[in-house]
Each structure stands twice: as C-alpha cells, then as structure tokens.
C-alpha cells in the first residue's frame, strides 16, 4: 500500500494544504517543516486519516470539531486506488470524493487488517522510540530473540514487560517464600480452620451433658424430699412446745368470767354518751337565763325613747325647700344688675330715634316698623342704580365711536379713486411664461452649437487622408464595407502565404546548411571511398590482371602496356598493389558502409533541399507580383473619392470614423434649425407683451431684444393693479359692517335710557313707604333703614330684661310663702322671719328625727331574735331530759347516780372477755389450720419435759446427714446447666466459616491473577524464542548489511553468538574481525543497530507481502552529518519497494536528501 496524497482540508493549523506523495517508485518523501509549521499536526493527520480521529484532539484550535476534514488517496500494490475523506465523527466518518458516506471497512483492503496501534509501532518510528530501542537492546543484553521480536513488532524493549509480569506474579507467590500474598492468605485460612474446629460443638457432647444433668437433678430431688420431711416434724414439735402456756391461761380466764354472773352489757360509748348529755343540759340552762334578762332590758329602753313624727312626715318637703334655697339666693343677687341693663337699653334706643326722627318719642318708635317691610325692595333698587346708569353711559360712548370710524373709512374710499383693468396683461404674461426661460435656453443652445461645430471641425482635421469642408462631409461617397473586407481577406491570404513560404525557405535553408555541416563533418573525418572510386580500383585491378594473364597464360608481351599501367613498378608488383588498393577500398567501403550510406543520404538530401529551395523562391516571386496587382486595384477604388488609401484594415477603421463624423455633422444641422425657431418665438412673445404694456402705462419703451426685462416689467404692472383692486374691495366690505354696528349701538342706547326711567319711578315709590323724600340717594335710604332696625333691636332687648326681672320677683315670693307654711306646720313655736334661716332650722330637726328612728328600729330587731332563741333553748332542754331518761332505762337504773356503777361492772367483764379472745387467737395461729381442740388433743399426748430432746435429735439428723449431701449435687446440676447453656446454638462457628470463605475468595482471585501473569510471561518468552528461530538468519543477513552502511563501515556486520549463559546474543563485527558486544557499543551505535533491525524486519516483510508505508519522525536529530547522509542513503535504497515518509524539522536533512542525486525516488516536500 502507498499513500498517494494527504489532503489537509481543515486540520490543526492547515486549511486546504496538500501533500502529494504520488511518484512512480514508492519513494522516500522527506516532509520538511520548520518548528511551528505543523509537522506534528501533519503526522497526526496522517494517522487520523488511516484510523480515524481520536475522541479528543488538540487540533481543533483553528477549525471546530465538526469542521475537521482530512483526505487522501491510497494505492494498493495491485493498482487499486481509493480517494476519500474523513471527518471528526463517532461513526460513519468516511466519505468519498463526492461526499457520499463510505463503508467503515472501506480501508481494510489497503491496511491489510493492520490496526492503529500496530501501524504506529510497526510502521512508524520516532526519535524517542529509536533511543528507547537502543536502550532496550542494552537492557536485553543483546538477547537476539527479544531484539528481533521487539524490532519486528516495533516495540522499544520487551525486557521491562517480561520483568513486570514476573515481578507481579512474584509478589503473589513464590515457592519457598513466606511473605507472598497468597502464602500469607493460605496461612490465615489454616489458622481459621483450626479455630473452627475449636469452636465447633459435636452432637454427642451435647447429649452427654444433657444426660448428666438429668441424673443429677433426680438425685437432688430425692434429698430435697427427705429434708423437707424432717423439717416438718421438727416444726410440729416446736409448735406444741410453744402452745402449752397459752392453753393454761385460757383455762383460767374462762373460770373468772363464769364467776361474774349476769352483767348488763352496755354499749362501748355508754359512759361518753351519758357525760355528754349531762354537760349539754347544763349549758342550755345557762344560755336561757341570759337571753331572758336581755329581753327585759330592751323593753325598758323602748319605753324611754320619744320620736318626732311630724318632722319625719314632712321630710320630703323640707328636703325640697333645702334644694330650692340655692336658686332663691341667686335670684336675689341678680335682680339689681338686670334692672340697670334694662334702663341703659332704653336710653340707647331713644338716642337712635332722635337721630332720624326727632319728631317721635321713643315709645312711638314701634310705628316705624311697618316701613321696614319695603326694606328689601329699597335694597334691591339701590343695588341696581349703578348698573342702569353704567349701561346708558356705555351705549352712548359706543355710538360716538362708530360714527367717527365710519366717517374715516368713507373719506379713505373717496381718496382711492378708480383703477384700470389688467386681465389682458395677465393673460399675455401666462402665455409667455408657459414657454419658460427662453433667453437662457437660447444662450445655452448657442454655446452648444458652437461647441458641436468646433468638435466636428477638430474630428475632420484628425481624420486626415481627405481635404474638404464640413458641408462636403455629408455628400462624400466611400467604398462599401464589404468591399473593404474582401480586400482585407485577400491581402491577408497573400501575406500569410508569403510568410509561410518565407518560413519554409528559411527552414529549408537552415536544413540545407545543417546537411552541409554534416557532410563536411563526414568528409572531414576521413575520405570515404565512393562507389566510383571502388569501381576505378577494381577496373585498374582488372586491367592489371588482364595484362598479367596475357603475359602469364598467353605469353604475350605486355611490357609497353605494363609501363603505361605502372611506370615505376613491374607489372606483378603493380598488380599486387592494385589488388591491395581494390581490397582496401572494398574493405573501407564495407567497414565504413554506415558512413558511406550517411554520406550518400546527406548528398541526396542536399540535392532535394536545394531543388525545394529554388521552387520556393519561384513561388515567393509570383506571390509578390499578385500582391502588387491587388494593391493597384485597391487604390483604384479610393482615388474616386480623392483619397490615397492605407491598408484595408486601417481604411475600415477610417471609414468607421468618417461615418461617425458624418453623424456628428448631421446633428449640428439639427441644432442650428432648432435655435432659429426658438429665436423667432421669442420675438413674437416680446411683441405681445410690449403691446399690452403700452395700453396700460406710459413708461418709456424697452430697448434690446431680451424677453426677460419685458416680462419683469409686465409682472410689476400686473401686481400693482391687483393690489389696488384688493384694497378697494376690502374698504367697501368694512364700510357696510361699520354701518350695521352703528345701527345696533343706537338701539342699545335707547333701551338703556328707558330702563333708567323705569328704575327712578320704582325708587320714588319705595322711598315713599319709608317716609323719605324721593330725592334721597340709595346710600341715604340704606342708612335710614339700618338706624331704624338698630333702634327697634335695643327696645326689644329692654323688653326681654323687664320680663326676666318680673320672673325673679315672682319666684322669690313663692319660696318665702312655702317656707312660712311648712315652718308653721312643723315648728310653730320657733317662728323665724328670714326664710333662709328657717330652712336651716327645719333641716336640723329632720336630721335628729331620722337618727332617733334608726336606733328604735335596731332595738326591735334584737328583741325578735331574743324571743326566737329563748323558744329554741327551751326545746333543747326538753330533749336532753328525754335522752337521760332513755339511758337510765338502758342501764336499768332508777337514777342518774346508779348509772355510773353499772358502767364500771360492765367494763370489768369486757376486759376478761378480751383477754380470753387474745389467748385463743394466739392458739389458733399455732394450730396452723387445725382447731383448738386438735391442738389441745396434740398437747395432751405430749410430755412437756421430753419435747426439747426430741426436737434436738431430729434437727441433728437434718443438718448433719441430709443437707451436706445436697450441696455437691446442686453444684453438679449448675455445672451441667452452664455447660448446656454454653451450647446455646450461637453462630460463632458459622462466622468463622464465613471468614474462611472470604479468605478463600481472596486466594482464588490472587491465584487466578497469578496463573494469568505466569501464562502471559511464559507464552511471551516461548513465542520470542520461536520467532527468533524462524527469523534470525534472514533478518540478521539483511541487518548486518544495513548496520555496516549505517555505521559508515565502522562495523563490517552483525552475527549471532552464544554468551556465558548459553543465550544467543547479537555481536557487532569490526572490519578487522574484532567482536564487539552491545554493551561495548556507543549509545548512538546501538540506536543504529536498533534501526538496522527495524529496517531489516521491514525489508524481509516486504519480500513476502505487500509493503506498507514507513513513517519516520525526526529520527536523525542526534546523528552526525555523515551518518545522517548514510541513513538517508539506506532509506533511498529501500524506497524502490517501501514507501518511506520522513518528517523532519531540519533544513539540512531536506538539503541532504536533495543532494543525494536520486531524483527518481527522493522527493522533498515543504510544509
């Protein structure tokens, strides 16, 4: 496969760049780009082209992701070619030249199934890989298998891979090592295993303990029942021993009770009840005596008290008077003040009246009140007075003003006089103006005409070849254009023919000269015998032979002829010489047959050329003659017009120019006619205007022929006429308006005067009512009315005061009467003249009476309570007596004193009874469920003195025999129970089992890992060896040669050897036969060794299968010039089978490649 082209449409710094790697040989293509030129981008683009864009790329700084586009053409060894594009897409990123999607596997036939990683390692090399490859050879200690394998696959070194695999496996497990992860985990597992065994509980263990427990429990139960039997017996005897004293006491008590005989049994509270009743009865008697005493005392006090009932009966009246006393006192105080005010009002009213009506007394003032009824009318009329007068004044003024103005307008109109009619002038003006500014137009056309004429004249002069005026231009007849074309074609064909013939003549001449040169060269080289010369020689030889034959065979004397044949030599020698000469000539002719033939060819060619030349010259001559004839005819056509013509092409141009001029001249004529028409029109219009003006004014006539001045004057006159007319019309309009206004103003004045008269009449009438003369002014009338009102108001105030004073007098009399009446009723003895003092006295009497009444009421209430208490106490006493009687009956006693004795007897009996009960209760407790009789029976059978001995014997058996046996057995039960409780079904063992599984899982994972690492390491090593065995010889053969070239002969080659470990290793061979191991080589040499192996692998590969391009990235950085040159040479050698694309940023590498002098296979491209 070859890369024919790389198109960097949009990628990295590139837009539409192309690298063309198309060459007939695969070739070495050096792509040179200085730093920053995008060398690395181009390299990445190449990779992306073949294998797709990586998911992320930094090459989108100029073109966005979706814009990235690269393309290229690949060529298969069988000639197939594929041109395609690739975009940055996740899927379906291939497109053909027409931008149609391509299948994803479209490149497969070209890439031969090689993937991206493989391609870049196997078919690419950069400086870093080279250096690491060199180091790798050192690491591998020159081990051939690894070196070949890594060079074949394009890896730098396998040593680190193998070492890492081994190290990882080793960390997991190594025989005889104890600290490896698997070993540690296995130990942990075993530890758990033994713990599990310890913790696990066997089924038989459990059964054994269960049975032991059952047995012990049974034994314990037997002992326990014996122990309880003994304890029971001891208890019984103890009981009897304790009961014996109580039984004796019981017997004694029962006898005492019997001895007491019959006893009245009284209730427990009998004594208390009796004492309680007795006490109550005593207290009640004391309280009764006290209550009766107090009642008698109260009745005495009641009799001593006297109550003033009359005062109490009139209590309301007295309270009323007491309240009214305040108002009465105030009335007495106000009286004199009010009287003073009343007199003052009256005096003021009299003064006011005197001011307006001195004739009237103040008491008659009321007679004026009716006049006040017209007060409003007078007020209203007074207010209207000024309005009416104003109206009359204004109307008069308006009439006068209008009359003045009317007179002024009339005089103005009269002054204006009559004016002339300008309508005809205006019509004439409109007509003139319709034609526009004729003066300006005529001026512009005049200039235009002048210029046009000037242009025509100039064009005529420029034209040349012909002399005539502009007028004659219109009339001149010229040959037809077709004729001109015809002549042009004729002239052209003649000229072309002439040129052709001359060319041929020149060529033939040159050919002839060349032939002559060649001939001369042949002839100068050596004299070449001609056929004629050979014939001459042969003829002479024949002649000699004939003479010799005649002399030798026929015996003729040929001496004379011989001398003629050869003067200097005898015949035989002469003949021999002629034979020699003829042979020599023939030989030479034979030997120089080529030259002879060439000579002959040259001669004949020369002849042919010369004759051709003659013929050509003849034809040229004839052609020149016919051209002269053509020229004469051409001239003939033009002489008729008085023109001596140039060539047809020039004349065609001239004719064109002439026709253009003719058109210009015609246009000139049109302009002139137009100008004349306009001038006539102007004159006509001017006349009309002047005529109209003459009719209207007597101004001086205008000089010149211009229209504009006339128009201006006509416009001025027309404007003046129009203004005068307008003024008159406006004056007439204002006159009629003024007259109408005047009429209206006069009517208004008249109405105002009528209103004024009406007002005066009403005014006089109203004043009459008031009693004022009609001549009084509104102000006077107003003052009069006001004074009357004020006077009447004062009188009203006086009247009000008088009524109040009268009221006070009336209230005072009524109060005093009431006081007198009541005092007479209540206290006739204490008569007091002053009403106020009397009221105070009455009030004091009332207060005393009220206090007495309250005391009396309190005494009445107390008496009622006492009466009720006395009744209650008497009832109580009776009840207590009854209670005592009942108690006496209960105790069967006749009196209160014997009751106390009965009480004491009863208490003694009860004490004995209680004691007996206690003894029996105690005994019942001892009987423990049995009856007292059982107990007595039990005690009856026992000897009291023997009891303690019996008890001690039983206790001894219990404590010394039975109980000591029970302890150990109970302990055994406890132990077995504990043991069984320990076997409680817990999950300790299960937990350990789970932990074991966790460790097993770890061991399992690590074992799997170990197996994989070991297998990987092993398969790799075995495969390295098998690759070495298969490829060592052919690769070393090629690599040895390459190594020699790359090291410039410093090494003669490479060979395999066996080291001290019996491993096959690579050895360099110096030209003097010295062997150098890789450790002894310089690092640069090892780099070249790695390169030699890589290139050898590639070459070997390309011998059997289609070659792939080899992409080289700047590997020569550290090579000196000579080795760089040698490397380039090696690449160039390989380039006949392998396409090598070499990227470099070093200009000298590019130069070196150019100067290799292998243009057929080395190409330099610049980025």
């Amino acid at each position, binding site marked *: 496969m070859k890369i024919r082209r790389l198109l960097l449409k949009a990628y990295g710094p590139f837009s539409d760049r192309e690298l063309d790697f198309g060459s007939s040989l695969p070739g070495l293509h050096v792509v040179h780009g200085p730093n920053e030129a995008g060398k690395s981008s181009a390299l990445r683009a190449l990779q992306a082209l073949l*294998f797709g864009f990586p*998911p*992320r790329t930094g090459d989108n700084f100029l073109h966005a992701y979706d814009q990235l586009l690269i393309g290229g053409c690949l060529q298969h060894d069988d000639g197939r070619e594929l041109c395609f594009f690739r975009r940055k897409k*996740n899927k379906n990123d291939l497109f053909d030249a027409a931008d149609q999607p391509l299948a994803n596997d479209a490149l497969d036939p070209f890439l*031969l199934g*090689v*993937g991206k*990683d*493989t391609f*870049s390692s*196997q078919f690419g090399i950069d400086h870093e890989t080279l250096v690491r490859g060199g180091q790798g050879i050192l690491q591998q200690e020159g081990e051939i298998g690894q070196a070949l*394998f890594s060079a074949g*696959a*394009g*890896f*730098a070194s396998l040593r*680190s891979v193998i070492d890492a*695999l081994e190290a990882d496996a080793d960390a997991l*497990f190594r*025989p005889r090592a104890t600290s490896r992860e*698997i070993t540690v985990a296995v130990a942990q*597992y075993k530890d758990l*295993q033994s713990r599990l065994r310890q913790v*696990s*509980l*066997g*089924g038989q263990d*459990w*059964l054994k303990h269960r049975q032991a427990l059952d047995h012990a429990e049974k034994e314990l139960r037997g002992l326990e029942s014996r122990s309880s039997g003994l304890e029971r017996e001891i208890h019984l005897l103890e009981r009897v021993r304790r009961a014996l004293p109580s039984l004796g006491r019981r017997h004694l008590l029962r006898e005492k009770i019997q001895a007491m005989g019959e006893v009245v049994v009284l209730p427990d509270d009998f004594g208390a009840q009796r004492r309680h009743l007795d006490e109550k009865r005593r207290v009640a008697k004391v309280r009764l005596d006290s209550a009766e005493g107090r009642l008698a005392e109260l009745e005495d006090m009641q009799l001593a008290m006297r109550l003033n009932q009359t005062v109490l009966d009139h209590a309301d009246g007295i309270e009323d008077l007491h309240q009214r006393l305040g108002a009465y006192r105030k009335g007495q105080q106000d009286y004199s003040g009010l009287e003073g005010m009343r007199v003052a009002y009256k005096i003021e009213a009299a003064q006011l009246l005197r001011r307006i009506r001195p004739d009237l007394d103040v008491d008659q003032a009321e007679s004026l009140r009716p006049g006040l009824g017209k007060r409003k009318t007078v007020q209203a009329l007074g207010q209207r007075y000024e309005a009416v007068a104003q109206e009359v004044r204004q109307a008069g003024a308006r009439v006068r003003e209008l009359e003045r103005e009317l007179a002024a307008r009339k005089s103005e109109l009269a002054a204006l006089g009559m004016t002339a009619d300008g309508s005809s002038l205006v019509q004439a003006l409109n007509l003139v103006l319709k034609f526009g500014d004729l003066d300006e137009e005529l001026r512009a056309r005049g200039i235009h005409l002048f210029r046009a004429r000037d242009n025509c004249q100039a064009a005529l002069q420029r034209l040349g070849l012909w002399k005539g005026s502009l007028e004659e231009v219109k009339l001149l007849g010229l040959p037809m254009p077709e004729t001109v074309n015809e002549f042009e074609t004729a002239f052209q064909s003649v000229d072309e023919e002439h040129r052709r013939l001359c060319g041929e003549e020149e060529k033939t001449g040159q050919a002839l000269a060349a032939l002559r040169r060649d001939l001369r060269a042949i002839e100068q080289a050596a004299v070449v015998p001609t056929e004629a010369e050979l014939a001459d020689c042969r003829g002479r030889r024949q002649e000699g032979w004939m003479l010799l034959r005649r002399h030798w065979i026929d015996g003729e004397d040929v001496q004379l002829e011989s001398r003629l044949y050869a003067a200097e030599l005898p015949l035989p020698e002469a003949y021999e010489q002629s034979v020699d000469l003829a042979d020599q000539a023939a030989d030479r002719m034979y030997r120089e047959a080529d030259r002879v033939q060439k000579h002959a060819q040259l001669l004949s060619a020369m002849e042919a050329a010369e004759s051709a030349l003659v013929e050509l010259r003849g034809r040229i001559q004839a052609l020149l003659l016919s051209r002269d004839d053509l020229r004469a005819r051409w001239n003939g056509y033009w002489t008729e017009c008085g023109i001596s013509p140039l060539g047809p092409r020039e004349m065609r141009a001239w004719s064109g120019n002439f026709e253009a001029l003719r058109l210009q001249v015609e246009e000139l004529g049109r302009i002139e006619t137009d100008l004349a028409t306009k001038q006539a029109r102007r004159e006509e219009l001017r006349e009309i205007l002047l005529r109209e003006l003459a009719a209207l004014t007597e101004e001086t006539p205008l000089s010149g022929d211009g229209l504009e001045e006339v128009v201006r004057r006509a416009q001025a006159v027309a404007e003046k006429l129009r203004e005068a007319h307008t003024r008159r019309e406006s004056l007439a309009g204002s006159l009629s308006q003024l007259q109408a206004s005047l009429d209206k103003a006069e009517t208004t004045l008249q109405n105002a005067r009528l209103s004024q008269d009406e007002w005066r009449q009403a005014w006089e009438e109203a004043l009459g009512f008031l009693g004022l003369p009609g001549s009084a002014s509104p102000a006077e009338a107003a003052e009069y009315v006001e004074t009357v009102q004020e006077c009447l108001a004062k009188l009203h105030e006086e009247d009000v005061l008088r009524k109040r004073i009268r009221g006070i007098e009336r209230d005072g009399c009524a109060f005093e009467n009431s006081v007198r009446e009541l005092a007479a009723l209540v206290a006739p003895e204490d008569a007091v003249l002053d009403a106020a003092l009397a009221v105070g006295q009455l009030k004091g009497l009332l207060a005393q009476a009220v206090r007495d009444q309250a005391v009396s009421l309190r005494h009445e209430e107390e008496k009622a309570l006492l009466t009720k208490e006395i009744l209650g106490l008497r009832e109580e006493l009776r009840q207590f007596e009854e209670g005592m009687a009942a108690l006496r009956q209960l105790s069967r006693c006749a009196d209160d004193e014997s009751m106390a004795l009965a009480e004491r007897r009863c208490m003694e009996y009860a004490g004995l009874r209680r004691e007996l009960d206690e003894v029996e209760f105690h005994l019942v407790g001892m009987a423990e469920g049995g009856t007292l009789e059982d107990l007595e029976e039990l005690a009856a059978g026992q000897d009291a003195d023997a009891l303690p001995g019996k008890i001690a014997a039983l206790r001894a058996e219990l404590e010394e025999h039975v109980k000591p046996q029970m302890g150990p057995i109970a302990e055994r039960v406890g132990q077995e129970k504990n043991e069984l409780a320990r076997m*409680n*079904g*817990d*999950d300790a*063992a*299960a*937990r350990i*089992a*789970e932990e*074991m*599984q966790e460790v*097993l*899982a*770890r*061991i*399992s*994972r690590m*074992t799997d890992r170990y*197996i994989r*690492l*070991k*297998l*990987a390491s*092993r*398969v*790799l090593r*075995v*495969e390295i060896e098998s690759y070495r065995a298969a490829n060592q010889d052919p690769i070393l053969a090629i690599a040895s040669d390459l190594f020699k070239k790359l090291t410039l002969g410093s090494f003669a080659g490479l060979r395999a050897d066996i080291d001290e470990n019996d491993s096959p290793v690579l050895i360099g061979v110096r030209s003097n036969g010295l062997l150098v191991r890789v450790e002894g080589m310089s690092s640069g040499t090892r780099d070249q060794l790695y390169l030699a192996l890589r290139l050898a692998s590639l070459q070997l*590969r390309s011998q059997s*299968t289609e070659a*792939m391009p080899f992409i080289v990235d700047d590997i020569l950085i550290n090579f000196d010039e000579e080795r760089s040159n040698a490397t380039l040479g090696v690449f160039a050698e390989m380039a006949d089978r392998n396409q090598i694309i070499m990227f470099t940023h070093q200009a000298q590498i590019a130069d070196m490649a150019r100067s290799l002098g292998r243009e057929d296979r080395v190409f330099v491209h610049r980025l």
Partner: protein
Amino acid sequence: MFRFVHAADIHLDSPLKGLESYPDAPVEQIRAAARRAFDNLVDLAVDEGVAFVLLAGDLFDGDWRDYNTGLYFTHRMGRLREAGISVFLVAGNHDAASPLTRALSLPDNVTLFSHKKPETKVLDQLGVAIHGQGFAGRSITEDLSRGFAQALPGLCNIGLLHTSMTGRAGHEPYAPCTLESLISKGYDYWALGHVHQREVVHKHPWVVFPGNIQGRHIREAGSKGCALVTVEDGRIAEVDFRELDVLRFALCRVDMDGCDDLDAATDRVRKAMELKRRDAEGRFLALRIILEGRSPVHGKALRQEDHLRENFRALAADLGDVWLEKLRIATRPLSAGSEAVDAQSPLAGLLAAIEEMRHFPSLTGLAPEFENLRSRLPAELLGEADPFSPDEAELTVLRDEVRDLLMARLQEGAHED
C-alpha cells in the same frame, strides 16, 4: 381457609462464598445471613398465622458439624411451637450426610418423615394429608415418589419430596421422577426441594420448587424466599412467593461504550450500582461488576485493574449496603481494527499461540510454580472450580484474559491512549 409455608434448601449456617473482604466492606452487617433468612421464615410463619410449615430437605449443609446449628434450629422450632405451628420435614441429600441430623432431638411440633418408607400424616382438623419420605443416604438414585400412597379422598393431599425431577442444571440428579408420575398420585400440591432456583413446574396440581431462602454465591443470584400457600375448601387457592433473603447476589453488566476515561467509567458503574441497589429493596447486595463493550478505556482499564477495583469498592462502601463481589473487565478495544495486527508481525504469532493454547494445553505441570502453588492451596479451592483445570468455558475466558493482559502490557508506554 388456612395457609402453610413451603420452603426448602435452607442450608443452615452455610457460609456465603466468593465474597472477599476488604476495608469498608459491610462484613458485620451480613454475617450469619442464612440464619437471618431462616429467622425471616419463622417470622413470616408466625405473622401470617400459618397452620404448618413444610421443609423439603437440605435443612443443614452436608459436612457442617457444629451442633450449635442444630440447637439454633430447635430453638426456632420452639418459637413455632409456642405459636401453635407444626413443622413437617424430610431429609435431603445434605441432611442425610450431616452428622447434625442424627444427633438432633426435635420438639413435639416437628415431624420428620421416615427415610425408610413413605409415610402419610393426616391432620384431621384441617382436612390435610401430608405424604413424604426422606433421604436415607447422600445419594439416592431411585424414584422415591413411586412408593407414595395415592391421594386420600376428601382431603387436601400434599407431597413432600426432595428431588431433582428429570434433572436440573447445576444440581445432582437425586431421587429422579417425572412430572407425570407426580401428577398421577392425585395430590393437590407437591412441595419439592433440592433445586435452588425457584420454579413452578406445574399448576393444578401444583408442583413447586421454592428455591433456597438465601443465595450463597454469585451463581445463586436474584431474589430468594419461600412459597406461601393458601388452601380454601380443601383446595389450593393461591401460591404466593415471599422474599426472605438478607443479602442478594447480582450480576451488574456495565457497557463502557463511549467512556473516554476511567472517571467516566467509574461514574457509569456508580449509576449501574445504584439501579441494582434500588431493585434490592433495602437488602444487602453482593455485586459482580462486568465491564463490557467496545471502549476507549479498554487498555487503560486492564492496566489499572487494581486501581479500578479499589474505586468500585469505594463506591460500594459509599452506598453502604453493597459488597463488590468481583470485578471482571471484559471490554474490547474501540474498534475491531485497532486490535488487529499485521499478519507478518511477531505479535500475530503471539496471538495465534494464545488462541491455540499451544503452549498450555493443561495448566498443571506446565510450570513447576503451578504445581507448587496448587499443592499449597486449601482443598476447598481445588474442587469443581479448580483454577488449574479450567473447563471449556473457563479456558476461553482465561485465554482472552491472558491475551488482553499481554497486549495491554506490551503496548503500555508505546501507546498511551
């Protein structure tokens, strides 16, 4: 109407397998999962007030010897006894092998069917006849069901049997029988055990494997529990499955397609874990993460497998109730092309060698280290899944993993992706 519980394959105190502990793994939280699942069973029986519980064999795990397990069982049976619930059980192949079975003394509410001949227990109050026979030894190859009595008329008939029926993958072919022979007995319900995967073999009459009550390793993934059966008028009215498991094993396949870096991969795994966790409804989860698909991170994931595993364990720890059982990287490179090598390259030979397993037809004996290691490994690891004797499928995985490992190592450094 009454209800009963049908469970089987309890394997009490059988440990969970394949869970490698690591810091932050919820070790304590999932201890004794089998017991806690059984506690759940007892709680269910009590809470639902069932009439009886059927245990169809493999109560214990074959070679488990700790009698505490038996004691634990009798204690729990005591609880059922207090609740008035009877228990009927048959011995399975594991029980027959277990030393616990022989030593156990059962409370009086527990009935163990004979392993010598089929027996029938009639529960008069409920109108139920239970037929059953246990395993006499660990390997029973005859059809036990054949000797079972025909259904008793007028009763609800239940068969209790430990069997592989006609064979189930991953289970020993013990006490084989056919569906037809079971149906021919005329029973209403066949309560079967032995197969750990829940399966309703037939309805009307019902033939049911409830599966085990707690998954014990990744091959027993998914929900586990028992059947809760409702009987109305002497006929099976409803068979309901109830989950009892405490920890659930689950495969979590995560497609790495389009993941550009390990962070993105981790993120995707987190989401997948959260989804699985949601499905587990609050149970603990043991997740096996399998990274799949063509992805740019293929090489990097292989090279940084340990780092990734730690990442995922940390994720699991963050979630709190998740245990990362195992991480498998089964991704492929981004495109098929990029893994292809030149046919002339030494790598082609290497790949061919791996492909053909030319250099390791059998692992043991291949390298002396292998034999050395194998001899030290606990016997538990060398049983069916002996890592040194892979079967066909394991060999394929092994081969792929060796290839990926080797290619990743070889191209490390040369091509950092």
